[in-house]
C-alpha cells in the first residue's frame, strides 16, 4: 500500500503542529518517524488514519484521497494510537471480536482470525481476562492485535513499545519486522535503537518539518563529520600526554587526539580522523616501531543518536 503525502499542514490555532510536510511511503516499507516530543509525529499519524483533517495538503493512499474515500481507506488501515486506549471493562476475546466486526469482517472468518491473532500476539493465557486487569505488556499486545485483526495493508503505530520491559520490546519489534515483510508499516518512536532495529527508512521530524529522510545507515553516513578511533595501549611511558600523543597526532588524516584514561601503564586515546579515513594500520605500524602493545582498537562513525541530536537541537 503506497502513501503519498503532499504539503501537509496542520495548525492548532496559529501554531503549526506540522508545517508543509511531503513524503512518500512505498509498499512493504517500514518507516520510522523520529523526533522529539511535540515534533508533530502524532499529529501526522492522526491525519493519516483519518481521525483529524489537515489544515491544508493532501494524503493519497493507493491513489485514493483519504478525505474523499475515508471509509474505504480506514478499512485497510490498522492503528495503534499513542497511550494505547482500550475498553477496560471488556475481556480480550470480546474486545477483539468487537474490533473485527467494526472493521467489517465477515462473521464466518471471525472465529478463525481471532484464534490466529490471539496466538500471534501471545494472548492465549489471558484471552478471557478483562483488559483492565491486565499488565501493560499484555495491553500493548491487545492493542497490536486489534490493529492487525483485519489483516490491514497499512499498519500505523504510535510508539508501539512505550512502557514495555526490554524483553517485551524485543518481542514486539520482532513481531513488527515479521509483519513488515508483507505490509507497509509506519511507526513513531523516540527510541533510536528501535529505529535501527526495525525500520528500513527514517523520517526525522523537528518542529513540524522533515529534517532528514533515508535509511538509518545512510543518515549515519551522510551526517558524519568525522570518524573516531579508540585505542588502548600498554606502554612504559609515565607521561603519555607528552610521549605518545604527539606521535599519534602526526599520522596522516588525524585531526585530534585526546587521552581518555591512564592506569598502570595502560592508556586510552580517542583519535578523531577525517571522515571515512581508516588509520588503524598506521597506528599498528607506529605501535610496533615504538614498542607499544596494542590492547584494543575500535573505530566508529557517527551514530544515529548523534545525527538526531544534531538535527533536533536548535
Amino acid at each position: 500500500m503506497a502513501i503519498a503525502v503532499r504539503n501537509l499542514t496542520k495548525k492548532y490555532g496559529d501554531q503549526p503542529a506540522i508545517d508543509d510536510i511531503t513524503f512518500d511511503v512505498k509498499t512493504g516499507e517500514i518507516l520510522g518517524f523520529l523526533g522529539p516530543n511535540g515534533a508533530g509525529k502524532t499529529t501526522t499519524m492522526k491525519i493519516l488514519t483519518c481521525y483529524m483533517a489537515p489544515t491544508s495538503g493532501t494524503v493519497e493512499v493507493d491513489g485514493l484521497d483519504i478525505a474523499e474515500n475515508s471509509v474505504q481507506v480506514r478499512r485497510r488501515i490498522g492503528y495503534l494510537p499513542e497511550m494505547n486506549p482500550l475498553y477496560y471493562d471488556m475481556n480480550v476475546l470480546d474486545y477483539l471480536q468487537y474490533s473485527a466486526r467494526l472493521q467489517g469482517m465477515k462473521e464466518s472468518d471471525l472465529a478463525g482470525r481471532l484464534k490466529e491473532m490471539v496466538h500471534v500476539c501471545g494472548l492465549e493465557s489471558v484471552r478471557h481476562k478483562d483488559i483492565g486487569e491486565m499488565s501493560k505488556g499484555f495491553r500493548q499486545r491487545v492493542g497490536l492485535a486489534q490493529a492487525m485483526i483485519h489483516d490491514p495493508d497499512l499498519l500505523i503505530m504510535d510508539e508501539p513499545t512505550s512502557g514495555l520491559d526490554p524483553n517485551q520490546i524485543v518481542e514486539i519489534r520482532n513481531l513488527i519486522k515479521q509483519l513488515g515483510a508483507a505490509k507497509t508499516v509506519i511507526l513513531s518512536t523516540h527510541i533510536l535503537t528501535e529505529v535501527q532495529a526495525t525500520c528500513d527508512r527514517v523520517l526525522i521530524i523537528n518542529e513540524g518539518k522533515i529534517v532528514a529522510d533515508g535509511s538509518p545507515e545512510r543518515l549515519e553516513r551522510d551526517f558524519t563529520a568525522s570518524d573516531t578511533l579508540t585505542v588502548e595501549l600498554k606502554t612504559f611511558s609515565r607521561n603519555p600526554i607528552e610521549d605518545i600523543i604527539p606521535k599519534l597526532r602526526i599520522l596522516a588524516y588525524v585531526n585530534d587526539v585526546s587521552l581518555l584514561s591512564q592506569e598502570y601503564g595502560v592508556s586510552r586515546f580517542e583519535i578523531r580522523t577525517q571522515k571515512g579515513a581508516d588509520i588503524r594500520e598506521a597506528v599498528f605500524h607506529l605501535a610496533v616501531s615504538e614498542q607499544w602493545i596494542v590492547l584494543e582498537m575500535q573505530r566508529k562513525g557517527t551514530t544515529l543518536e548523534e545525527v538526531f541530536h544534531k538535527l533536533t537541537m536548535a
Partner: protein
Amino acid sequence: MLNFQNILTIFRRELRYYFNSPVAYVVIIVFLAILGWFFSSNLFLMNIATMRVAFEIIPLLLLFFVPAITMRLLAEEKKSGTLELLATKPVRDGEIVLGKFLAAWMLVVATLVPTLVYVVVLMVAGSLDLGVVATGYIGLLLLGGAYIAIGLFASSITENQIVAFIVAFLIVLVLFLLDKVLIYVPEFMATTLEFLSADYHFSNIARGVVDTRDVIYFCSLTGFSLYLATVSLQRRKW
C-alpha cells in the same frame, strides 16, 4: 448511507456495558423503588384504577435518570482516548451516535418494562382503560428517546461526565418546565413556549390521543439532538 451492521455492533457493546456493570441494575432498581413509592401511596388514596400517577411521575424521574444513563456515552470515550480507536475504524460518526442512542434507549425500555406489573395489577383490581395506558407508554418511549438524544449531545461536547450530566439535566429541565411558566409570560410567547415544551406534548399523548404533531415534535427533537451530537464529534476535524 449508514451501515446497519456497525450500528448493531456498537449498540451491543454499549448494552453489554450497561448490563455487565452495576449501572443498569442500579438505575432500574432505584427507578422502580421511587416510582413504586409514589404509585402505591397515591393508588390507595385515590382508589381509582388508573396509571395516571405513574405517567406523571415517570417523566419527572426521567429528568434525572436519563442524563445519568447518557453522561458517559461519549465523554468517557473522549477522555480515555478510545474515541480515536473507534473513529479510525471504518465507522461513520453518525453510526457511533446512533448505536449508543439505541443502547441507552433500550435501557430505558428495560426500566419501563417492569412497570407493566402495575398495569396487570390494576387490570385485576378494576377496569383499566388500556388505550390510554398504551398511548402513555408510547409517549414515554418518545419522551425518553428525546431526552437520551439530548443527553448524548451533552456527552459529546465534553470529556467530563459531570459536566455532561449537568448540561443534559439543564436542557431537559427547561424543556420540562416550559409549559409550567406560561402564566408568567406575555400571551404571544405562550403558544410558542407551549409548543416547545416536552411535557405539553407528552401529556397530550398520555391523555390517549397520539397526534401527529406531538409525534413530529419528539422525532424532530430527537433527530436534531442526534445530528448535533454527530456534528460535535466531527468538530475534531475542524
